[in-house]
């Protein structure tokens, strides 16, 4: 009923490899895209700039990590370090006078080069060993940032970002920042949607499932792993740069610490490995839920006139949030994306499947 399947036949390969095989999916996506476009006019500015904007940028970043972890199956614990490389190099480029369009690309490329250089060394090992090597990369980056004032910039290692300007237009309003974040997130999403149906995507999945089996089929697993690292690092670099340019306005090492790396990985895992919609949900849960639950708990205790001391009040949301992650992963170990998939599958032929049971 919701997903009309009648009349949908895929009789050739081109039709079968469409992004949206069911019209309802396409319509839903178009609808959400339109809401995204209209968001500055329908969502209060508080929610626009302190929830929507970071959500979109972190989603773009999480999609990049999903590419290397979800698609290519390589655990990555140093993702925030790669974002830092992009952020710092594009800000330095912009401060040097390079137009922002190029500065962002420079940030992406530097991340890409450093990320894949590291992958060269790291990919000689697999699995947990690789995870530890990428963690080492995070610590190397942290050390470099806190020990080189030339990179991290003066007092308390904070680097001011110049005003963002794209296509000759200075961007200073909340709406402007939102559209930049929205545009980048849409771009990454389209890339990821298409990745699924290309040879590259299939090769990555083959490498993920069993790299030597893939090698037997003629897929050079080392080459594809490096490619996955390079691409995801590019996305990370630009996302990191945009995060600073549109949200923080100032880069500091704490914004890209090891805790952040683990947070991004949590977003991808809770959202669902290899799931695009899951990344959106995962980021929302990890990034936004603590703040929202915090607000709810505070309102609730105020509303009920309870005298709870501030410290307990601060810890309750953390407990709720932790429980939420555990419950979600217990219900559906494949993450929020799969949870959505289950609902969609259930509704696919609803109510006719009820007759079978």
């Amino acid at each position, binding site marked *: 009923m919701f997903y009309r399947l009648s009349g949908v036949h895929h009789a050739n390969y081109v039709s079968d490899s469409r992004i949206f095989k069911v019209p309802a999916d396409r319509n839903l996506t178009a609808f959400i895209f339109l809401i995204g476009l209209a968001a500055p006019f329908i969502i209060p500015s508080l929610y626009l700039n302190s929830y929507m904007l970071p959500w979109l940028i972190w989603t773009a970043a999480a999609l990049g990590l999903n590419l290397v972890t979800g698609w290519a199956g390589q655990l990555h614990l140093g993702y925030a370090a790669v974002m830092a490389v992009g952020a710092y190099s594009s800000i330095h480029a912009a401060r040097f006078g390079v137009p922002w369009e190029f500065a962002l690309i420079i940030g992406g490329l530097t991340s890409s080069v450093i990320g894949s250089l590291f992958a060269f060394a790291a990919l000689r090992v697999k699995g947990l060993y690789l995870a530890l090597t990428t963690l080492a990369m995070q610590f190397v980056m942290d050390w470099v940032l806190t020990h080189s004032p030339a990179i991290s910039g003066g007092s308390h290692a904070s680097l001011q970002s110049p005003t963002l300007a794209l296509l000759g237009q200075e961007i200073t309003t909340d709406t402007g920042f939102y559209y930049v974040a929205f545009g980048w997130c849409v771009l990454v999403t389209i890339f990821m949607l298409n990745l699924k149906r290309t040879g590259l995507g299939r090769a990555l999945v083959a490498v993920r499932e069993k790299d030597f089996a893939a090698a037997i089929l003629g897929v050079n697993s080392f080459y594809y792993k490096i490619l996955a690292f390079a691409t995801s690092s590019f996305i990370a670099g630009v996302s990191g740069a945009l995060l600073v340019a549109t949200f923080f306005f*100032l880069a500091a090492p704490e914004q890209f610490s090891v805790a952040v790396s683990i947070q991004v990985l949590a977003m991808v895992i809770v959202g669902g490995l290899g799931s695009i919609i899951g990344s959106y949900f995962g980021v929302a849960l990890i990034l936004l839920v603590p703040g929202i639950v915090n607000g709810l708990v505070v309102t609730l205790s105020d509303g009920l006139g309870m005298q709870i001391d501030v410290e307990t009040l601060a810890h309750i949301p953390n407990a709720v949030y932790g429980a939420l992650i555990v419950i979600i992963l217990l219900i559906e170990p494949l993450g929020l994306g799969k949870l959505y998939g289950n609902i969609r599958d259930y509704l696919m032929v609803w109510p006719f499947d009820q007759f079978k049971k």
Partner: protein
Amino acid sequence: MKKFTKALAVLSMFGGAVFSTQALAEPFKIGICYDLSKAYTFATPQVSQAAMDLAKLINMKGGIGGEPVEVIVRDHGNEPQRGIECYSKLSREGVFVFDTLSTPVSLAILPRAMEDGRILMQSLVGRGDAVDGTVFDWVYPIGPTYWGQAANDVAYIKQLHDGDLSDVKVGFVYFDYPFGQEPIEILETLSEKEGFELELYPVPLPGSDQAGVWSKVRRDKPDHVIVWMLGGAHVVASKEMKRNRIPMDKYISVNWLNEVDIANIGKEAAKGIKRGTNVVGGQDIALYQEIMAELYDKGEGSGPIEKTQDVFYNTGLAMYSIMFEAARKAAEAEGLPITPTSYKAGLESLEGYDANGLMAPVTVTAEDHGGGGKTRIEMWDGETWVPQTDWISAYTDVVWGVVKESSAKYEQ
């Protein structure tokens, strides 16, 4: 249907409550966006409790200009994006004075506060060059910067050696990240100026392993060790000092050393340990006694009484006394309601304010947003803190040289 009408009634009650509070006059509010659950929990509970107690006390005495004051405490978990969320949310509710007590969050809010013209208080955290009021119009790091504190420590050492530092060796043990690295430049400049020998001992985070550092200190035999570490790291350091037979009185800590650390080291074992501070330690303070009499003795305190017996509680009292005093001045000068501009003027009219002997006197001007940066050295005698110096701010020319050099980079 009955349930539905009941729900409606409850809803309208809530709605009514919201509207009725809006109809009342806006009290002067301070937004306290603190990390109450992650990295800064060694100090935030005490400081926020002090803020709430002080607000209660002021309201009992009739508020500021006849209006009640309000402090709004929220948790941001030391995450920059949640700090920004807290700032955006509260500033839409009419708050224009903020404090974060967290360096990452303070850094993240600073560009917004500068843009929006809201007051960002950042005593003891955040970028030190923000004391330069000519660049950072809306940021007030009242209290000592780490640069100023380190310079004052050197002045104290100079005092001990009768004004001659030429054959003195000073060790600097610090957390190897921006917080600990900040004083290095000042110490190096002063070492050249005064002719003392400076030895640097970086401690890797989180500071739980300092064995190598202190055995090196034993070999180098510095006369004094200035220490830039926090919380549990002091306890580890004291153990290593015992192991290496380094006397405790060589230890001069940054202001982040409190009674909890002393208890963990052991009251007797900690004898002789020193710290720089901008507030008076202990409970023999007029304001503290008043809070005890008016609030805690009547069971009206904002938290457990044990938390008030901590130097960070005094630090909190000092920070918020300044904020409320500025509001009082603003209300006196330009009347109610207090606006960001009148509040700013109120802050900048503070002169020699020491909250009745609670802290180092503070004089804020349009150029110096740090209030003078005075500290003193106190020593733990096994029972309480004994002051070793007057309130001093030494080498101000050197400190301001570093401040100006750094703040110039912000303007670029």
